[in-house]
């Protein structure tokens, strides 16, 4: 009989791959009996849906110095305009 720790790992695995039948059955049995793991399984599916529907922005921005470095790198690469 799986405990919640094992069951939640399998529930996570199952989102990304087809589990062997024995694991699938023991997970299904655990989920039938355990409300908390049922919730966990639903929540990580929901995370997948939200992630797919959201433009993730962690708020990272280039500093002015970094922009200047990028600009000069691009200018160095530019071929001689006369040629």
């Amino acid at each position, binding site marked *: 009989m799986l405990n919640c720790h094992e069951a939640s790992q399998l529930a996570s695995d199952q989102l990304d791959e087809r589990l062997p039948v024995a694991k699938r059955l023991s997970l299904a049995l655990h989920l039938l009996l355990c409300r908390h793991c049922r919730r966990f399984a639903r929540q990580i599916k929901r995370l997948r849906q*939200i992630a797919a529907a959201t433009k993730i*922005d962690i*708020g*990272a921005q*280039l500093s002015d110095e970094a*922009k200047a470095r*990028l*600009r000069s790198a691009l200018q160095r690469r530019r071929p001689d305009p006369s040629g």
Partner: protein
Amino acid sequence: MQDKEEERGDGSEEVDLMAHADALYAYAMARLRDSVLAEEAVQETLLAALTARQSQSNNFQGQSALRTWLTGILKHKVVDLFRNQIHTVANDDLQGAFEQAQFDSNGHWRLKPGHWPTPEAAVEQREMGVALSRCIGALANPAASVFIFTEIDGVPPREICNNLGISPTNYRVILYRARLALRRCMEQHGFGPNGEL
């Protein structure tokens, strides 16, 4: 001060490309979590783009087509840089400790997952998206990147393992820890037992 000069003619390619630098950097930072590596990825991408446009005289219908093309180049640079980084990140222990803390010695939940109501309105959906964005921002690598590659970029697991040089077992553990942490973080942001949506 140089912008004026560039706009006059032969610098227009750079101006065009630089307009996307911030977005590319945000993309790279979300996945690499290292400002030096992220800047390197952006620079390599812009230089590759400049070279390609000069030799092929690529014509893009608009800025969004250009952005898509640049992001495609960046994606590969990020994976290359991340592959080298993943074996040196030292936070596996940290995330392992977080996993252990979620369960008691019998493997039962210490903090039981709560009931998440189904968001009805678009506003609520957006709020969950904002919270998830924050939670991903607070997540360390490799968990953050592996979650993003899987759930946002939609890269197949086998491809992620190959690209990053990690075993399927390692991949499963990293992704599981990411989900445990994000689930918990969402509840701390008010989605769950004690919060309201």
